[in-house]
C-alpha cells in the first residue's frame, strides 16, 4: 500500500528534474512514450518482487525480509532515477543530447534547415574523426618516450677531476731484471738471428733457457716460393726440427720475402696455428709481451707493486691551487699495463676537492720524474707519462682513454667537463648503476662505479675463464680463479689468441653491456712547450736533485722530467641533460587543444557523452525487458485467454499478503475490483499550480505558443 504512491511520486520528480530544459515538449513526450514503456517497467519490477514472495515468513525471517525489502526499495528507487534519462526513445535522447551538449557541432544539426543539417552532420562526423585520429597520433607520440635535450655551458665551482698518472714503463728494470733475465737473453738471440746475416756462434745459444722458447716459438716463413712456403724455426740449426732440408735460405732472406710468425700450439703441440706478422718489430714485441705476461702473472700483485715506480720517485713536486701537495695525496693503484699508477683526488676516502677558478694558477701542477734509463727495454718502446682525467670513484682505463705527456716538456691541459645526463627506462636502455646488467662487474672489488669499459672487460674475462679456465693477466680475477701461465695452463696462449680473434665474443659482450646513463667526458685542450728552458735548466735540476736525492750533483735529466698543468678552462662545464619531451601535462593539453580546436569540447563533454551512452544502454535494457515481457504476456494471454492483471491488482498482490487474486472471476470487466474506490490517488493527482510559481516571462510565452499548436 505504501509502495506505489512513493513510486509515482519519485518518478514524476525524476522526470521533471531531468527534463527541465525541455519544458514545452515535456508533456507530449510523456504522453507519447508513457503509453507502453511505463507499464512494462513496472511489470518487470513486480515480477522480480513476486519471485521473493513465496518464501515462508516466520517472525525473525519476516524481520529480515523487511530489511531486505528496504534495501530493495532503495535499489529500485536508484534504478528508477538512473533509468530516467532525458527520454524513452533513442531519437528523443539523441535530439536532447544534441541540443544540450557543450560540444559545438551537434547543436547545429538540430537547429538548422535540412540542407544545412546534412552539412553539419557530415562536418561533425568529420571533425570527430579528425579529433580521434589526432588523439591517436598524440598518444602514440607520448608512448614513444621521446626526450628533449637541454644544453648548458658556463663556469661553476666543480669537483676537480680525478687525475691518474702512470709511468709508461710498468716496472723498474733494475728490480725486475732477475725475473726477465732468461727472456731478455732469448730476445737478444732472436734479434740477432733475425737481423744478422750470419748465424752466431753455437756457444751463444747454448746458454739460453729454451723452455720459454719451446712453448711459443717464433718462426720465419719463407715465401719466396709462394706455393710452398717454408717454415723455419729461428733456432732450427741447433734443434734439428726444421721442416726444410737446408737451414741456409733462412739466413739470407729479408723482410720482403720472409715473414716472422708466432707458432701457437695446444694439446701438446699437436694442433698448431701460426700468427703472422708483416713486420718483425711487431712480431718480437708481441712475443715478448706474451712471455712477460706469463712471467708476471705468476708473481703476486704485492710484489709486482714493489717492483714498479714508487710515488715518492715519480712525483717530484705537486701543487694544487695555492696549496702544496705531495705523493701522499695520491692513491696508489696497480695497473697491469703501467704498473703503479697514482690517482689524485679519487674521492674514495675523502671528499673530492673542488676548484672554483679557471686558469693554471688554480689547477694542479705536477713535476714528474720518469726515470727513463730504468725502463724495461723490450716491453715499452714509448717513453712518457700516461695521464687520464676521469670521474671520481671510477676505474681509470688508462690504456684506452689516457694521453701521453712527453718528457722534457711542459704539458698544459685545459679541461672542459662534458657531461651527458640521460633518463633511464623507458626513455633509453641505459643503466644507472649497472645492477641490471647480466655481467658480474669484476672492477667492483675496488669500489669503483659501473662503466661500460668495466663491463666489457669483465665480460671478456668471463669468457676467458669459461674457454681457457684461467684469467688473463690484464684484467681482474673473479674469486677462486687463477691467472694464466705456461706452467699450469700450457694451452692458454692458443686459447687466448683464438678468443681475441673471435668476433662473436665481442658481439656478445657489446650486446650484454649497457651504457651508463651518466656519461662524462673531459675535453682537453693540450698544448706543449719545452721545459725547463735552457736558462732555467741548471737551477731547476739542481733543486730537484737536491730534494730527491740530497745530492749536490744533478741526478735528473731532460729525458726523464715532465711538467704537467691541469686546470679548468674559462667555460668548465657543458651539460647535456635529457628531460621527457612529452609528459602527461603535454599530452593532456594537446588532447584538449585538439578537441577544443575541432569541436570546442572538454572533458565534461566526454562525461556528457558517457552519460548518453549509459542512457542508451538503459533504453535498450528497458526495451528488451519490455519486449520479453510482452512476449510472455502474449503467451500468457494465449494460455489463459484472460485479460492481464491490472496495476492495482498486482500492487495489491505484493503489498497485501492476505490478498489473493480472484482467479475464478474472469469477468470481462476489469473495473469491477473492490479496491478501485479506495484508491483515488492515481486517478486524481494533486493539482500543479503553475501560476503559483514565479516563471520567467518568455517561458510562459513559449508555453502559450506551444499550446497554440
Amino acid at each position, binding site marked *: 500500500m505504501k509502495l506505489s504512491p512513493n513510486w509515482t511520486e519519485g518518478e514524476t520528480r525524476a522526470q521533471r528534474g531531468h527534463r527541465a530544459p525541455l519544458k514545452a515538449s515535456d508533456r507530449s513526450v510523456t504522453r507519447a512514450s508513457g503509453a507502453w514503456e511505463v507499464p512494462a517497467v513496472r511489470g518487470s519490477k513486480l515480477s522480480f518482487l513476486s519471485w521473493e514472495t513465496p518464501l515462508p515468513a516466520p517472525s525473525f525471517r519476516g524481520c529480515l525480509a523487511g530489511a531486505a525489502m528496504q534495501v530493495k526499495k532503495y535499489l529500485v528507487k536508484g534504478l528508477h532515477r538512473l533509468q530516467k534519462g532525458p527520454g524513452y526513445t533513442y531519437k528523443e535522447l539523441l535530439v536532447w543530447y544534441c541540443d544540450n551538449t557543450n560540444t559545438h557541432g551537434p547543436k547545429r544539426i538540430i537547429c538548422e534547415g535540412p540542407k544545412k543539417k546534412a552539412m553539419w552532420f557530415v562536418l561533425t562526423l568529420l571533425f570527430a574523426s579528425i579529433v580521434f585520429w589526432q588523439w591517436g597520433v598524440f598518444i602514440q607520440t607520448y608512448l614513444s618516450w621521446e626526450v628533449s*635535450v637541454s644544453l648548458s655551458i658556463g663556469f661553476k665551482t666543480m669537483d676537480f677531476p680525478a687525475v691518474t698518472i702512470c709511468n709508461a714503463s710498468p716496472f723498474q728494470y733494475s728490480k725486475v731484471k732477475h725475473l726477465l733475465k732468461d727472456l731478455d737473453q732469448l730476445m737478444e738471440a732472436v734479434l740477432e738471428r733475425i737481423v744478422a746475416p750470419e748465424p752466431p756462434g753455437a756457444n751463444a745459444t747454448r746458454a739460453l733457457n729454451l723452455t720459454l722458447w719451446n712453448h711459443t716459438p717464433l718462426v720465419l716463413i719463407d715465401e719466396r716460393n709462394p706455393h710452398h712456403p717454408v717454415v723455419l724455426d729461428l733456432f732450427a740449426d741447433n734443434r734439428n726440427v726444421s721442416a726444410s732440408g737446408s737451414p741456409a735460405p733462412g739466413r739470407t732472406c*729479408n*723482410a720482403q720475402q720472409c715473414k716472422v710468425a708466432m707458432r701457437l700450439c695446444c694439446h701438446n703441440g699437436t694442433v698448431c696455428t701460426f700468427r703472422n706478422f708483416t713486420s718483425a*718489430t711487431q712480431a718480437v714485441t708481441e712475443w715478448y709481451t706474451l712471455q712477460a705476461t706469463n712471467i708476471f702473472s705468476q708473481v703476486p700483485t704485492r710484489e709486482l707493486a714493489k717492483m714498479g715506480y714508487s710515488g715518492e720517485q715519480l712525483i717530484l713536486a705537486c701543487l694544487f691551487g695555492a696549496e702544496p701537495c705531495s705523493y701522499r695525496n695520491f692513491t696508489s693503484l696497480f695497473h697491469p699495463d703501467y704498473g703503479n699508477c697514482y690517482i689524485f683526488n679519487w674521492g674514495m676516502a675523502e671528499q673530492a676537492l673542488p676548484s672554483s677558478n679557471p686558469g693554471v694558477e688554480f689547477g694542479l701542477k705536477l713535476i714528474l720524474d720518469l726515470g727513463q734509463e730504468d725502463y724495461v727495454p723490450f716491453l715499452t718502446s714509448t*717513453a712518457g707519462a700516461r695521464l687520464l682525467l676521469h670521474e671520481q670513484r671510477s676505474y681509470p682505463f688508462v690504456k684506452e682513454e689516457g694521453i701521453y705527456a712527453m718528457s722534457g716538456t711542459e704539458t698544459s691541459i685545459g679541461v672542459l667537463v662534458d657531461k651527458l645526463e640521460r633518463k633511464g627506462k623507458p626513455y633509453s636502455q641505459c643503466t644507472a648503476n649497472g645492477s641490471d646488467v647480466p655481467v658480474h662487474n669484476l672492477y667492483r672489488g675496488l669500489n669503483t662505479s659501473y662503466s661500460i669499459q668495466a663491463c666489457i672487460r669483465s665480460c671478456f674475462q668471463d669468457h676467458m675463464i669459461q674457454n681457457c679456465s684461467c684469467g688473463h693477466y690484464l684484467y681482474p680475477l673473479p674469486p677462486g680463479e687463477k691467472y694464466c701461465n705456461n706452467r699450469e695452463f700450457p694451452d692458454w696462449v692458443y686459447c687466448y689468441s683464438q678468443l681475441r680473434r673471435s668476433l662473436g665474443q665481442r658481439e656478445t659482450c657489446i650486446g650484454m653491456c649497457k651504457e651508463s646513463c651518466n656519461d662524462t667526458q673531459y675535453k682537453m685542450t693540450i698544448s706543449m712547450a719545452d721545459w725547463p728552458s735552457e736558462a732555467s735548466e741548471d737551477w731547476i735540476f739542481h733543486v730537484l736533485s737536491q730534494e730527491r736525492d740530497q745530492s749536490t750533483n744533478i741526478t735528473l735529466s731532460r729525458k726523464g722530467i715532465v711538467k704537467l698543468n691541469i686546470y679548468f678552462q674559462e667555460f668548465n662545464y657543458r651539460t647535456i641533460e635529457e628531460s621527457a619531451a612529452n609528459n602527461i601535462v603535454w599530452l593532456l593539453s594537446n588532447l584538449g587543444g585538439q578537441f577544443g*580546436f575541432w569541436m570546442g569540447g572538454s572533458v565534461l563533454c566526454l562525461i556528457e557523452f558517457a552519460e548518453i551512452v549509459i542512457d542508451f544502454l538503459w533504453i535498450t535494457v528497458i526495451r528488451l525487458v519490455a519486449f520479453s515481457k510482452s512476449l510472455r504476456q502474449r503467451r500468457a494471454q494465449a494460455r489463459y485467454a484472460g485479460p492481464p492483471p491490472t496495476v492495482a491488482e498486482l500492487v495489491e498482490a505484493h503489498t497485501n499478503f492476505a490478498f489473493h487474486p480472484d482467479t475464478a472471476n474472469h469477468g470481462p470487466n476489469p473495473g469491477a475490483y473492490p479496491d478501485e474506490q479506495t484508491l483515488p490517488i492515481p486517478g486524481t493527482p494533486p493539482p500543479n499550480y503553475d501560476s503559483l510559481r514565479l516563471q520567467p516571462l518568455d517561458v510562459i510565452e513559449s508555453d502559450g505558443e506551444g499550446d497554440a499548436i
Partner: protein
Amino acid sequence: MAPGEKIKAKIKKNLPVRGPQAPSIKELMRWYCLKTNTHGCRRIVVSRGRLRRLLWILFTLTAVALIFWQCALLVLSFYTVSVSIKIHFQKLDFPAVTICNINPYKYSAVRPLLADLEQETRAALKTLYGFSEIESRKRRAAEPWSSAWEGTQPKFLNLIPLMVFNEGETSKATDFLTGQKRKVSGSIIHKAADVMHVQESKEVVGFQLCSNGTSHCAVYTFSSGVNAIQEWYKLHYMNIMAQVPLEKKINMSYSAEELVVTCFFDGVSCDARNFTLFHHPMYGNCYTFNNKNGTIHSTSMGGSEYGLQVILYINEEEYNPFLVSSTGAKVIVHRQDEYPFIEDVGTEIETAMATSIGMHLTESFKLGEPYSQCTEDGSDVPIDNIYNAAYSLQICLHSCFQTKMVERCGCAQYSQPLPPAANYCNYQQHPNWMYCYYELHQAFVHEQLGCQSVCREACSFKEWTLTTSLAQWPSVVSEKWLLRVLTWDQGQQIKKKLNKTDLAKLLIFYKDLNQRSIMESPANSVEMLLSNFGGQLGLWMSCSIVCIIEIIEVFFIDSLSIIARQQWQKAKKWWAQRQAPACPEAPRSLRGQDNPVLDIDDDLPTFTSALRLPPAPGAQVPGTPPPRYNTLRLERAFSNQLTDTQVPAES
C-alpha cells in the same frame, strides 16, 4: 507525432529568427550573438547597461586580438627544430685514415725539373740577404749550381720579378736583378706575414704580377722575405709541375712500402697492400687506410691496441728546401667517401715521436628544407662537383673556385682536380694566368665570386673529435734494438741504417665506442600546431573550428544574402516608385501593408476574416488584444497530468 519532430517544432518556435531569414543585419548579429558557441558575444547582447556592454565588447575584441597574436606566433615558430643527442655504444666503423708525407716528391727525383728554379732562388736569396751558400745539407754543396748562373738568362725572375720596395715610397721599387730603380704601376696588395717581423725594416719584398697585353699589374709585398720567397717559389713550382704527367709524378713520390714501415690494426698485422694510393697535387702520394674499396674495418673495442698503429719512414734528406720548411707527416681522419683536404685540415706528425690520436665519433643530422638551408647530397647546388667524392661544403667551394678559374683564366689551378675539358695552367699556354689567379683568389676571399652564397653545408656529417698527445719514441733504452729490427723490416727499400729522426709512430684509435648522434627533429608538427590553436581559441573565447564556420556562415554568407535581399528590395521599391505613376496598384499594396489586420496570421481566424468580409468600419480589433490570463493555464497543468493517465486509452 514523433517526439523528435515535436522537439524540433518546439525549437523552431524558440528561435524567432534564423540566419539568412533575419530581416536586417542587426537582427542577424543579435541572433548570432545569442546563439553562437563562442563565449563573449552572448554577454554583449545579454548585458544590461551601456558601460557593461562596452566592457564586454572590449573584452571580446581583446580576446580576438590575443588569439590572432598568439596564433601568428605559433605559425611563425612552426619551422623550428629541436635537437636530440643520443649515445649508442656499438661496433663502430673505423674511419678512413689518409697519411701523407709533408714533402711531395723525392728531391733527388724532382731536382732535374726544378734545377733552374732552384738556381734562381738561391741567386735571389744571395742578392736580397747577402748569404751565398746554404750549408745545412752536405749533399747540396756538391751541386755546381753557382757556376751555371752566368751562362743562362734567368727566365723565372724575368717572368715575375722579385723586388725590394721602400716602405715610404711604394711606387718606387728596386729590381734586384738589374739593380735599377723603376716605377711600379698598379695596385699594391700587402700580404700580412705570418712570421712576425720584429726589426724596423724600411724595405719590403714582393713581386709584381702583370697581365700580358694590358698594362694591368698587381704588386704583392710581404713584410717578411720568408713568405715572399716561398710564395714566389710556389707559383713557379706549380707552373712546372702542372706540365708533368701524373704517372711520372707518382713515380717521383714515395711508395706505400717506403712510407709505411709497420702496420698493425686491431691486433692483426697489415701492410702496404691495405693502403690505397691517392695522389695529391701539393702533397704527392698519400695513402689511405680503410678506403671504400674492400670491406670497411670496424672496431669493437676502444683503446690504442685495437686501433691503427703505424710506423712511418720520413726521409728528411729528400726534402725540398724551398717548398716545405717543416718535417713530418700529415694525417687526416675522414669518412670513406669523403675527399681528404690535406692542405686545409689535418694533424701533423713529428718525427722521433709517438703521436697518439684518440677519437670520439659525433654524427650530426640536420633537417633540410624548410628548416635550414642544408643539402642532402649536393644535387640541388648549382655547382658541378669536380671531385670524385661525396658532397661537402669544402668540395663545393673548391669546385666553385676551379670552375670560375677555368671560366675567367681559361685554365685550371694546379692544386685542385681538373674539371672536364680543361688544362692546368702553365706559362707556355697561359702566359698571364698568375695575375688572373691572384685576382680571382682575392675576389674569392672577399666573397665576390658568390661561391660562399651558392654553396650550402651538407645535412649529415660525421665528425671525429681528436685528442692528440705526444710521447718520446723510441725510448732511450729501447732505441738500439728497435732501430735494428726496423731497418731489417724496411729491407731493400732503403740502403741505410735508420735514424730515429727518420721515423714517426702514429696511433689512431677510438677512445671509447660511444657514438654521439646529434639529430634535429621538427619541434612542431601540424597536430601540435592545431592543438595549440585549439588551446588558444579555447582559452580566450571557448571557440572551435565550428565557431569559425559559424562566423563564416553568419558574417559572410548570411550577411551578404541579407544585404543582397535588402538591396533587391530597395531596388524593387525604387523601381516601383519609378513606376508609380504608371502603375495604379502600388498605392493599394502600400495600404495593404499598413493595414495590420491583413498581416496577422497567427491569430485564429475570426468569423470576419474567415469569411473574408471587409472589416467592420470603426472596429478596433487589433488595438485590443485578448488578455492573456496566465491563471488559466492552471487547468492546462491539470490536463497534462490527466493525459498521463489517459494515454493508454488514447492509444
